[in-house]
């Protein structure tokens, strides 16, 4: 392997790549049963997104990566705990993969899925 210093170059990471990371981390979080497609006209109830990345919005205002997640949560879980835990997990996984800090991770709980009625 060459030990010669390489000229510093640019590394660009697309929003889509970050969205994939975030979507994978979200779907592994307990309590999340799906991502909601956010490209829907207001008033229409949620639709489980076919591609989970449709439930993720990545922006970088002022150079800081911000992530908005549109999720559907299992009915009967404590929604605030689930949302907290998603925000932590996504931040942790994305920051670890990118090797740099990110800005806000916003969670939008779009709906609850009822699979059992108690």
């Amino acid at each position, binding site marked *: 392997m060459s030990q010669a210093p390489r000229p510093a170059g640019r590394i660009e990471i697309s929003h889509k790549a970050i969205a994939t990371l975030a979507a994978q981390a979200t779907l592994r979080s307990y309590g999340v049963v799906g991502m909601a497609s956010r490209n829907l006209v207001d008033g229409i109830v949620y639709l489980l997104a076919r591609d989970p990345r449709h439930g993720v919005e990545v922006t970088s205002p002022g150079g800081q990566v911000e992530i908005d997640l549109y999720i559907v949560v299992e009915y009967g879980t404590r929604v605030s705990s689930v949302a907290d835990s998603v925000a*932590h997990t996504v931040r942790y996984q994305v920051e670890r993969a990118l090797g740099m800090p990110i800005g806000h991770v916003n969670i939008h709980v779009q709906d609850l899925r009822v699979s059992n009625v108690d």
Partner: protein
Amino acid sequence: MSIEAMRPPDDVRRELGRSYAKIDGRTLRTLTEASLTWLRTNQQVVNALNVFPVPDGDTGTNMTLTMQSAIDALGESSVASVGKVGKSIAHGALMGARGNSGVILSQLWRGFARALDDHALLDAALLTQAFAEARDTAYKGVVHPVEGTILTVAKDNARAAQEALEAGAESALDILEAVVEEAEASVARTPDLLPVLQDAGVVDSGGKGLFFILEGMLRHVYGLPLDTPLATVQPLSALKLQDAAQSIEPGQDWEVVIDFRPAAPLDIQAFYAQLESIGTSIQVGEGDGIYRMHIHVPTAAKAEPEKYIETLGTIKRVMFENLMEQLAEQSVQAASASFKLATVAPGQLAVVAVAPGSGIAQVFASLGVAAIVEGGQTMNPSTQDILSAVDTLPTDQVIILPNNKNIVLAAKQASGLTAKNLSVVPTTSVPQGIAALLAHDPDGDLSAVTDAMAQAVGEIRSVEVTTATRSVELDGVHVREGQVIGLLNGKLAVSGDDLEPVLLEVLKKAGADEAELISLYYGAGMIALQANKLGDRVREVWPRVEVEIVRGGQPHYQFIASVE
């Protein structure tokens, strides 16, 4: 401890099988309370298993709080049907679910309760069904279940219950035994399924917590104690002795900590058994072949642990602490430590300060600090500790005062790891931190206030008085171990055998002759009377200088002082 070792003699076991053939609501309640007690006893063991630095905080604590909420929901009622008790537990667990593991635990209870429905009694078949329903409900809560976690343990539990039922289980106790046995084995298998556990050399914390919940029920049935932790050896770094000191039982007046190197491999079970006959709150840690034993004992038995351990190997160090004294001190400190931090509005400037003692924290709070991070010379807070404090603030303009040269770097690192605008005023002592705070303006501009603070820091002379931990010659001053030393702006300036002359000389070197104000913050190892006497001496020597004496409560330093 394996089930085999816990199980009572056959005739007793047969008798128990009859009493626990079917479980009523009251018994379910008692068993759940036993779960909570046993989980709480082993909370630190579970906490020590965390591998991720972020996602789930302290699993043991989260699960314990979730269980506590479940028990609280039962209230004082003495309902006899398992269905009703199950519903209350599930509701309480849901309302109090904390962290990832707590949410999953609440789902397990939810499924469990659903199976109980409106049944009055819980028999072997219904219990088996309840474990299956718990598994199903928990798995429904996630799209991509990760195996090697509490979910896997719940799945294995349901399978073990089913197998036991098919093998002819007659009582609810038969099922519980089979489940606890499998839970233990399943937890042990988690590292095979989840590489991150393998790498960290631990088992899954949530799975372990679930195991303690189930084992607590079984231990209650067997009549085994629930308040002594399992005979486990933790890594030394994971021993949390401060927590142990908070649970003091009447009569156990002394805390004894002994470091030793055993002559032969230690039989942990026998070691615990012997210690349990002497005292309570037993913890054992190990690192590099050195063991550390922690125990609370009555005054009469103060020497017992030492005598016993002497027979096992070479003792390296013995530490005694008088708990009653400590407790009294804690309550005094707790009373005086209630202080109000400054509140900040979004967009305003907030200050996070590192404080080595409760008194100093109080002084900082009174000067407008919005968050305190505990730390100092020998307990440096991590970057994460600082970030956590920053994260709690509702504003994104934050100034950090590290107040110790060993913490400046961690503070600077923090500023690269958050989206908030952080600036660090590199204060290296408490007086510098206080000087900086006098320049604080919550409505000012971040860089302007930072500059003003840095300038204020330059105008103050800070003095620290402590005891030398080793012999050294530094900055032209010769010091023997155990001597009192005075530092001026972090540099060794004076040494001597007694506190008073050292204090006076270092203040003189700091320019007390021309000063207007000397503030003395006395440390945790000193009482007010002593400090006031020394303060009076300072006033005698410099009658025209105003002298302030404040309880700083910092460890290791007899005095921290500012001269201005």
